[in-house]
């Protein structure tokens, strides 16, 4: 595991800080997410195994996830997930390990063109390491 160059540490964003309000009729992004959009941020969580081998992204979750056997379509993730697009391919980290991801924060609905996976929050140009 290589450590990152000692640049100024990017601001840390937690899963609790993603939404300002959560309700039946939709979620509202937090002011912090809006303020940090387009900037490099760090997030800690758990890496869900790639949905498909060819997918260029993975899902970062707050807690280690297991999904019910009959509803494991991409739509059955909890609300508070972040989709991570890596700059370069990285090896999957064991599911019980916390990772820290650094990437450019993006928010708003976006459909992955290859898989059709709809996400609300993304970290682009990202890399990660186990912590």
């Amino acid at each position, binding site marked *: 595991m290589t450590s990152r160059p000692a640049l100024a540490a990017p601001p840390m964003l937690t899963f609790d800080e993603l939404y300002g309000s959560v309700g039946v009729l939709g979620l509202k992004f937090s002011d912090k997410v809006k303020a940090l959009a387009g900037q490099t941020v760090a997030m800690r969580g758990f890496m*869900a195994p790639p949905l498909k081998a060819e997918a260029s992204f993975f899902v970062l979750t707050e*807690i280690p996830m*297991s999904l019910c*056997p009959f509803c494991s379509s991409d739509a059955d993730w909890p*609300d508070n997930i972040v989709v991570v697009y890596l700059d370069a391919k990285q090896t999957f980290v064991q599911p019980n390990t916390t990772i820290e991801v650094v990437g450019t924060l993006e928010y708003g609905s976006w459909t992955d063109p290859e898989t059709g996976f709809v996400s609300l929050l993304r970290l682009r140009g990202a890399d990660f390491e186990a912590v």
Partner: protein
Amino acid sequence: MRKMLLALAATTMLTGAAQAATVYPLDRATILAGSPFDFKVEFKENVKPEDVKITVNGQDYKAVFGSDVTFTEAEVGKDDKKLGSAVTLRKLMIAAPGEYTVEASAGDEKKAVTWTVYATPAEPKVKNVIFMLGDGLSVAHRTAARIMSKHMTEGKADGRLNLDDVDLRAFIGTSATDSIATDSANTMSAYMTGHKTAVNAIGVYADRTPDSLDDPRVENIAEALRRTTKKSIGIVTGAEVEDATPAAVVSHTRRRADKADIVGMLYDVKPEVLLGGGSAYFLPKETPGSKRKDDKDFVAMFKDAGYALATDKNELEAASGTNTGKILGLFHTGNMDVTLDRDFLKKGTVDKFPNQPGLVEMTKVALGELSKNQDGFFLMVEGASVDKMSHPMDWERAIVETIEFDKTIGLVREFIKTHPDTLLVVTGDHTHGISLIGTIDDEKPGDDMREKVGVYEKAGFPNYKDENGDGYPDSVDVSRRLAIFANNFPDYYETFRPKLDGPFQPSVQNEKKEYVANEAYKDVPGAVLRIGNLPRSSDTAVHAVDDVVLQAVGPGADEFKGYMEQSDVYRVLVDAMALAPAKN
């Protein structure tokens, strides 16, 4: 000897030459007279349309079916795999009851099936049917709920569940058309259509093509009610309203995961009362939290169709006074939180959705609204999380869900006292491999939790208390609690304790798509790693194939008896409401 050889040769030739085509509906299907259904024959080879021969009771099919089939020369599977030819006839309807033997052949392929088309009695026995389904409800759930809620002294229960006084009627066989094992889609579909189908499928026979929405359809109870009556329809669940069980009341898909499409089918049928979770599939794609992939706004569409909308307990109370006759209650983006989290521990997602109603409150509002209809109603109430908490082996949550389901049965039984023209059915859709085997006693010596499991006379009686008399234990975390185990499991850490911090997540997936024990529970004092006995692709405990117990009271209930296939239950429901009255 010579005769025997000849006979043998003849049999071999028959099976060798005649490949079996597949005919939907399958052999031994039972069909409500006058109900529309799709007919399909799948041939294994490409055949010529002029070679396809179909007879019904020996006559050309058109005389009975009334119209022509559509011929597809070559159906295509995944990766352009050639599947063979097919013929289809959509929305076929047979009005006259009787036995129908359908023979289909082309080239050397041949298949004969026999369907039973049935009418109902001419006069209904009841005005209302209330169908209460404890998802995954097994015998151990009710035993544990009785002991946890009512307690036990010297081997006799100190009180009775509401469930205990609904007459026991039948054992239900839950198997699917493709497997002895089963899930909530095909099982509820059997109850709600009278046809068995494949695991994962709802309101269709599972054909071979990849499209999940083109499979041969059969009529469901909501469509039958709309076609033949003016009764109201209600659906109440703690799950997403587009989850398999509620979906089976109204929808048609080979894949229960087609939840966005299922919401569209709910909208097509428009049940007068629709209460549960799952709002994420009602919101347009652009709304954060939406799980749709299009711009349809079903909340707005339902409101435009005259529905009063409720998103929490207070709004539900307000909506119950509506004069539009229609209530849409969506109380969570996903599955609603369970009783133990909602009312006691405040865990799960209760911080985000703090004011969710429970099953009793939702059912009360549903009954109040539906009973305004002079023509009667059909209400489906699902205790969804008995199953959703049994999968991860979160026994305290599963048993408290069973108690809540039982309290809802109590409410319904009160309703029936003043509405005796009601048939009440209480059942499960499938079972779980769950058993109650004794107690876990913290007072037993040592730190080894296994040695604290009390069996036989050492189990004694648990020490749950219910000081406030609400039927729920004041705490589930007592020093001598129920010892419940699953007979099947993935790798997980057994803690022998209630999960007070939120629902149990026994396993997590690794990069090989195998489930491994969730190490979040590794450091719980006394936790031990149990190596699973399920395939490593299983994330949680699975459904059991064991029969389900069906209970029922009210006019028509005596039609339930002995062993019944799950699909036979539908006939009792439609008989009670006389949905296909026999003509003299």
